[in-house]
């Protein structure tokens, strides 16, 4: 349907010069596409949509639907420009970056229209990038090497959880048996008291006329004795101490200490900060916190159930832990009257549930279960307890940012943690005065919390951002985020530079 246009041999001196340059190497073309531009007379658009004469390639006018006729200019808005960047690495740019007055390629080849003069920075950038890549390779490889430690610890943890679950089962049985026994004794005692009372009443009836007043006194005395006896029997319900010793019959209730392979102890984390890595800013004073219940007990009422699974990998030797690190389980136990039997059961259920969490294909992330990390940002302290919860603390007050929900995966790796149900977003400050108008509901009025994993030597809460109100984004460094794949990628990039 197109009318016949009339092409003229309108070849200016400029075009001739341009062509002679282009014949050497077509500007902006990727090496793998070079053959497309190799013909002497014609060029066929990469998508095959049309064929034009070769002098219309890179002639500052867009002829192809896909922009492929202008690889070296900005004439096609959907085109790409390739720069060789010798000494660093080749780069593909949007065609919008060509001759826009900004040097985007380190070799400056994207600016050839005389708008700016670019200095070739490829050697410097290449050297800088080489260092970054080498560091990256090192980090990823080290991280991968450490992974087996995590897997081992995760395995031990898992075994401990199984064991604990069994113990709990036995404990539950034991306690309930004992409770049943005590209940029987108590029933018998009550029955006896009841019978004695009846007997007493009957006797009173018979002797009423004789020594009514004296008998009454005797009866009072007797009743007091009975009461004392009853109290004594009740005290025979076993104490926590007794339960512990009975528990010992089935095995130690505490989670066994782990092999000496901790990589994330406090000292090393501080070293991370000192070493730099860009996190020295005292404004963001990173701090590693080992969250354990205080030695005096009194655990947080919301967490006392699963605190049992606090996995204390600071135990780097086989010795019995010292008093302040070790929480004797008997202190957790309360007299059975105060402690519903179902608590042990729910603890047991949780053990099973936690085992079903996504800890990665090799379960390595289980080694981080309930490990807690903090980061100070302005007046707020942010805390993340892995697979548990995230919190924002401001002086005395505390805001739940969410409890463990799920992972987002990237290339098969566990990449972003999501914590949800942190509750509704609370009101912001000041401008509330202007916020009284009814507006459509937000996409989500709930707090959103996500934690991205980045590869590093140690566990470390790198940053906390609140890009918009009630949306929290953390970056968490761990060797578990390192991958052989990324190391390989970096290695290939390094090779590409060297060439």
């Amino acid at each position, binding site marked *: *349907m*197109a*009318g*016949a*246009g*009339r*092409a*003229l041999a*309108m070849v200016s001196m400029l075009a001739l010069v341009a062509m002679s340059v282009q014949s050497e190497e077509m500007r902006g073309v990727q090496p793998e596409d070079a053959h497309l531009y190799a013909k002497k007379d014609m060029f066929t658009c990469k998508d095959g*949509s*049309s064929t*034009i004469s070769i002098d219309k390639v890179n*002639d*500052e*006018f*867009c*002829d*192809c*639907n896909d*922009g492929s006729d202008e690889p070296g200019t*900005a*004439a*096609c*808005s*959907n*085109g790409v420009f390739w720069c060789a960047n010798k000494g660093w690495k080749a780069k593909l740019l*949007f*065609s*919008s*970056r060509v001759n*826009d*007055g*900004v040097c985007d390629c380190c070799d400056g080849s994207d600016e050839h*229209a*005389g*708008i700016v003069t670019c200095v070739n920075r490829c050697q410097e950038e290449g050297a800088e990038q080489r260092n970054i890549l080498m560091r990256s390779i090192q980090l990823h490889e080290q991280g991968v090497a450490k992974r087996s430690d995590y897997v081992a610890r995760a395995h031990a943890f898992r075994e401990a959880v199984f064991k604990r679950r069994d113990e709990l089962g036995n404990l539950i049985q034991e306690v309930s048996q004992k409770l049943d026994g005590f209940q029987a004794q108590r029933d018998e005692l009550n029955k006896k008291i009841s019978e004695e009372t009846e007997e007493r009443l009957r006797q009173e009836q018979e002797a009423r006329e004789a020594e009514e007043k004296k008998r009454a006194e005797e009866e009072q005395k007797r009743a007091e004795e009975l009461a004392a006896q009853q109290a004594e029997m009740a005290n025979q319900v076993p104490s926590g101490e007794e339960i512990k010793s009975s528990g010992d019959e089935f095995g130690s209730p505490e989670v066994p200490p782990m092999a000496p392979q901790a990589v994330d102890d406090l000292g090393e984390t501080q070293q991370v900060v000192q070493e730099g890595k860009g996190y020295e800013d005292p*404004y963001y004073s990173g701090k590693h916190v080992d969250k354990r219940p205080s030695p005096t007990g009194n655990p947080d009422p919301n967490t006392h159930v699963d605190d049992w699974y606090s996995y204390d990998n600071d135990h780097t030797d086989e010795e019995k832990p010292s008093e302040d690190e070790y929480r004797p389980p008997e202190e957790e136990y309360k007299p059975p009257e105060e402690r519903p039997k179902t608590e042990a059961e729910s603890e047991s259920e949780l053990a099973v549930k936690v085992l079903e969490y996504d800890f990665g294909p090799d379960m390595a992330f289980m080694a981080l279960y309930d490990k807690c990390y903090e980061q100070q940002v*302005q007046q707020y302290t942010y805390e993340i307890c892995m697979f548990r919860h995230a919190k924002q603390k401001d002086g005395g007050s505390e805001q739940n940012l969410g409890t463990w929900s799920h992972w987002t995966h990237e290339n098969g790796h566990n990449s972003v943690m999501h914590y949800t149900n942190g509750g509704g*977003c609370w*009101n*912001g400050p*000041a*401008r509330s*005065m*202007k*916020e*009284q*108008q*009814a*507006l*459509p509901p*937000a*996409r*989500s009025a709930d707090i959103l919390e996500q934690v991205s994993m980045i590869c590093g030597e140690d566990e470390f809460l790198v940053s906390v*951002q*609140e*890009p*918009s*109100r009630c*949306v929290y984004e953390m970056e968490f460094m761990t060797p578990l985020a390192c991958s052989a794949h990324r190391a390989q990628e970096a290695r290939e990039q390094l090779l590409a530079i060297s060439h």
Partner: protein
Amino acid sequence: MAFKEEEFRYCKDSSFCRRQRKFDGQDDRATYKLHNAHLEDNGVVAEMKNALNPNQPLKLRATIYKSGIFRIEIDEASSAKPRYRVKDVLVGDISQHSSSEGAMEDITGENDGLWEESFKGHSDSKPNGPESIGVDFDFMGAKHVYGLPERGSRLMLGNTRGEGAARDEPYRLYNLDVFEYEPLYGAVPILYSHRPNFSSALFWLNAAETMVDVEDGPDMKRTHWFSESGVIDVFLLSSDTPKGVQMQFASLVGTQFMPPMFSLGYHQCRWNYKDDADVRMVDSKFDEYDIPYDVLWLDIEHTVGKRYLTWDKHLFPDPEGLQHDLASRGRKMVTIIDPHLKVDMGYSVYAEAKRLGFFCKNKDGGDFEGHCWPGTSSWLDYLNPEVRDYWASRFLPANYVGSTEHLYTWNDMNEPSVFNGPEITMPKDLLHYGNVEHRDVHNLYGFYMTMATVAGHKLLRPGRRPFILSRAFFAGSQRYAAVWTGDNGARWDHLASATPMLLQLSLGGIHFCGADVGGFFGNPEPELLVRWYQAAAYTPFFRGHAHIDTQRREPWLFGDVVMGQIRAAIRARYLVLPYLYTLFHMAHTQGLPIMRPLWMEFPGDEVTIAMDDEFMLGEALLVKPVVSANTRSSNVYLPSDKDDIWYPFRNGQTPKEQGVFTSLWSRFRGQTGSLRGQAQAGGKTISVDSGVEQGIPVFQRGGTIIPTRERARRSTSAMRADPFTLHVALNVREEASGSLYLDDGDTDEHTAGGFFLFGLKFQSNQLEYRQTEGSGFKFSHPPPALERVIVYGITKQPARVTLKRKNGGGSELEFIYDKESAMLIVRKPNVPMNEEWSISFAK
């Protein structure tokens, strides 16, 4: 629309309004008669007396002020205290008189808040007693009146009195930050009426609280104007065309400042981009997604505790480095600088002003203090020229530590907003420079603030153009600042009201105006956000902004499809920048609005006089925003004065439009799916496909020529060397005309002739490019060339197309012609755009 009702005064809450409205004009004794009329200077001067107050004569002066403008001034013949007369608003004022004296108001003995009144616990002492003034004016033959910004109403102002009145309250002009719609943040006391072949307007030069009642009379609109204080100073404008009246108004209050080119690009704002890393991330994402933008904005949180002109060094440790980094890619930054200064002797901007006595004063003479963002604050008295000088000096990098030449300014909260004041503003009995009461100058506070900020920019960047955004304004504010419509919401009805609001501002001379894209409050659905970008791309000021409690809404956060639609909308904006910039030149030199009601371009088409959901961008483009969800097609009225025809304007909305020549037919399809070249007859409503992926309907008027730059770029600066495309849309006589304005985009050289204005004319199969004005300027890069010419509505295929250059050179050009759509594309004339040429289309 809803607004925060309890914060507003109604007429019944206001003594002068009650009294003025009670006056019904039926009492003959109130009628003034002229005495001793005589010629003086270029007008008539007379004494006015009436039977009610025979001992209080008034002095009337009526003059032909400028061509076509009639001025009436009425003041007291004598009084103890001169009444306030507005200064600094008129440009080249040829008749500033000394004031006469006394109370003009007719007090009938009742004590209805004459000497003191209170509202919501705020007491107004009224030391001068009642001073209100009022006059009636009739607009003969008018069906509609327009104007009186700023309010969220329709463009056509409904009646406030009489049977079937649209509302009870008079239109109120009183700059307030009482959240939504009426009155709003700015005021221009001008009212227009238009009927075929006759346009008129009334400008009421008074900065006190002002009310206007509108009602029907026999074949007319009656208006009643009254202000709380000051004098009657009225300008009557008339012309046979609406543009004539616009130009008259511009001759009174001045024209739009010529903005730097970058400020016509897309602005990305949020309350708040939190810190250095956040700004760099947002900046880099625009490049990552190849979305153009020019300016990154910082709201109040970037300061040290809302102490303006400071940077929080924890959040922004190196603000200069940040600005230089953005500038290396051609981008700028804007920081917010509000008029309330935190009361803190450790804050030098405050402490120095305190020492110099530069703050507004309470009625008892002490410095006024009120509450705003930083807590207890004082407000600089910008009416004082010394204060303006002081303010200007604060913009020098030595004082504004952390600023660079790449930093521009946002003046917010300048109504002024005082959180604990009456109606969230200053008490009326507060005192300004020269012992002037705030009641007399309230609507000028923001005007003077922006005047001072402009002076600051000129100190910071001598010889270069300022850019300031202001929320408050008065008549003439267009000389100093762009204006946005303030705090809107993420609602379809707020998107819809943006069009009439911006038209209203434009009629008020506030030509560089826009509404926050997406809506400030709340979270827009992606479709609403896209529609907002599509509409706002064709409005003069184009900024995305969001409240601190909203979700992030940068274009890439909604998935590739939505991102692509937003990118296309923003690119469509950059594409028309040469046309838009030329329109700004017309606004700057002639006073013509950028955004125009249809009746301004089609004064003979009576259908248009009640339309405000479509607008003209200049004389060539008709834009119809889509303002409801799930829209697949829109009804578009294509106006016509005489034989007008329209062509769908390519708006860059689909990937297919991304660039081809040989398969150009897919490229230049319009929104209708028909070929871009197919014309539609005007004077009727047509249905146009307008799905969210297709964009909003935009049409080019036959007979116009639009210059564009078609290459995708990341900023206006990156486009500076790009070649131009000309869209030549022929009318039924196969003729078209247009213009192209070129300057350096940044300096004041254009005021000394350092620009090119080229006229474009297509006639008798010849396209002429001739310089009409300017002595030119030197490009800092190779001069941009002509990349392509597209002619729409050309019925015959030319035998050849030939370029003829001024130096005598020339060449035959390659072209392609499609008979079915009557469209022709010339490939790469490649002639520099700073020289004259012609292209002939030989039969």
